[in-house]
């Protein structure tokens, strides 16, 4: 099996890379996402002002040559805050997605490989949890467990797990009928070995696509939770949190205190979704 795969794999991989490098949507999406990743990693060293530095005398200043995006109600530089604001959401959302991917993959492998009554029950439960309005149950869980970044990661990670499990399970169902699994069984490999060493490497592409899609949802969810006060907490320059703190003042005409944060979220979410869509298309094609 390994020899055959080694011969077939590079050409398939090359095909995917060619498709991706020719996809305008993928390159655009990836560029946007990489821009924000760079901001998250090095933003603090690149921005002109301290994102937390208050300057009451210059509060609510319009966009100008000194403050490109203006200043907020306690005089903090909004440009610096928007750039550095990518950091927390790009920490929490990917960690939640990784947790969801691990939980979902294990659950999907177990239910798909063993079948039987456990699979029936687990699958019905997975479907049932997916039919529950997620944001609201997540909010309930966060209120019960206490608001913190860790809680947000755990709650979002667990609530996205079942969706990934369903994808993994259906991938496992088609893999387990293939000859290499039968061969492994004849060699008396144990189930854990077959699931994680034999099957898992072959279902990585759908897992990758699913995770990228869920990363988009996770950013959506973390931003929303931060906006209603149950996600990232002050003094984080997080975008959702900043909009939440400033939107009561927009009737006074201080549009710049929310517009740039809104555009930042918009570009990041659209960027991730463009990447995920293109990835799905290339791997399915």
């Amino acid at each position: 099996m390994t020899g055959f795969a080694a011969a077939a794999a590079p050409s398939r991989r090359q095909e995917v890379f060619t498709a991706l490098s020719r996809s305008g949507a993928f390159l655009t999406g990836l560029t946007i996402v990489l821009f924000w990743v760079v901001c998250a990693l090095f933003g603090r060293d690149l921005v002109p002002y301290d994102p937390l530095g208050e300057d009451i005398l210059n509060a609510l200043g319009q966009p100008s040559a000194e403050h490109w995006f203006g200043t907020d109600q306690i005089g903090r530089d909004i440009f610096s805050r928007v750039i550095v604001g990518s950091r927390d959401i790009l920490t929490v959302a990917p960690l939640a997605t990784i947790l969801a991917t691990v939980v979902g993959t294990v659950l999907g492998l177990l239910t798909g490989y063993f079948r039987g009554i456990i699979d029936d029950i687990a699958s019905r439960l997975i479907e049932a949890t997916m039919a529950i309005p997620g944001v609201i149950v997540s909010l309930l869980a966060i209120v019960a467990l206490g608001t913190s970044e860790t809680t947000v990661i755990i709650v979002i990670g667990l609530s996205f797990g079942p969706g990934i499990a369903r994808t993994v399970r259906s991938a496992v169902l088609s893999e387990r009928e293939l000859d290499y699994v039968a061969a492994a069984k004849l060699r008396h490999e144990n189930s854990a070995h077959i699931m994680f060493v034999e099957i898992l490497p072959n279902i990585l592409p759908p897992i990758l696509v699913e995770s990228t899609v869920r990363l988009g949802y996770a950013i959506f969810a973390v931003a929303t939770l931060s906006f209603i006060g149950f996600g990232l907490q002050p003094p984080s320059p997080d975008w959702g949190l900043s909009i939440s703190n400033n939107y009561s003042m927009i009737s006074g005409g201080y549009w710049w205190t929310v517009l740039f944060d809104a555009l930042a979220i918009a570009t990041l979410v659209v960027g991730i979704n463009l990447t995920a869509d293109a990835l799905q298309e290339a791997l399915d094609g």
Partner: protein
Amino acid sequence: MNRFLARRFAFSLVTLFVLSLIVFFLGQILPGNVGRTILGPLADQQAVDALNHQLGVDRPLLVQYGAWIWPFLQGDMGQSYIYRSPVAAFVVPALGHSLKLAAVGFLLVVPLGILGGVVAALKVNRPLDRVISLGGLSATVLPEFVSGIVLILIFGIWLRWLPIDAAWPDGAGPLIQLYYLVLPAMTLVLGLFGYIARMARAGMIEALDSDYTRTAVLKGLPWRLVIWRHVLRNALLPTITVIASQTGYLIGGLLVVETLFRYQGIGSLIFNAAKAKDFPMLQACVLIIGITYAVATLLADLLYSFLNPRIQMGDGQ
């Protein structure tokens, strides 16, 4: 048909049961020792035990679950910690307000989304199609508070066409109410338009490419009639399912939209209950939303099977 119905109904019940378990057990984490919390750290241990016994929180979990869910099903949703009065008195009117907002949103987005999808399919791969498809999907993936803020800035602050607060003056007529609901409803529309348009577009393209369409054209029917009689009917069926599957999204959206526009619906009730850690209120709201959602998807599935004879023939998937 009946078997499909029964399966579908059983699934809704399982979903609601799982939801009620989640809600119940989350409720067990929060208060810690209820009697101790109410009476304070200096109270006598005997008094705390007595109060716990009186409140019933010293019973086995399963008994407590029964004692919580059974009255709930009969309309007694418990007492709000904050208002110290029955939760139902707040939840029911709030749900009514939310349904009003959701209805306005749906009435706007369904025709707009279908129109968008149909136009895109008729101009497939031309610039107009690209604008509708890409624009629609981009708007869909944005969190509601982001698209809501952009709408508020454009139509409320810069153009000054629409109110940015959904709370209308007392005694306002339906038209005035509608005027106040346009911006929040448009925010929901932006969230859903892309999905509906995408499904309608895909259904249209498939129907346009089908044999029956070719036959209708070849037998000399006018193009307009072909579209109306043959293409649209077949194209819109899958769209109904996607509209139904978005109810959950819509409910999640209400939480944010109502907070953003200060609208007194179930979303803002949840928001305020969460801020105040009013757990009985939160539990009731989440369960009520779950029930509403289950009923909505059930109705949509019924409608779909009613419109699509192929499901009635089989035993349902």
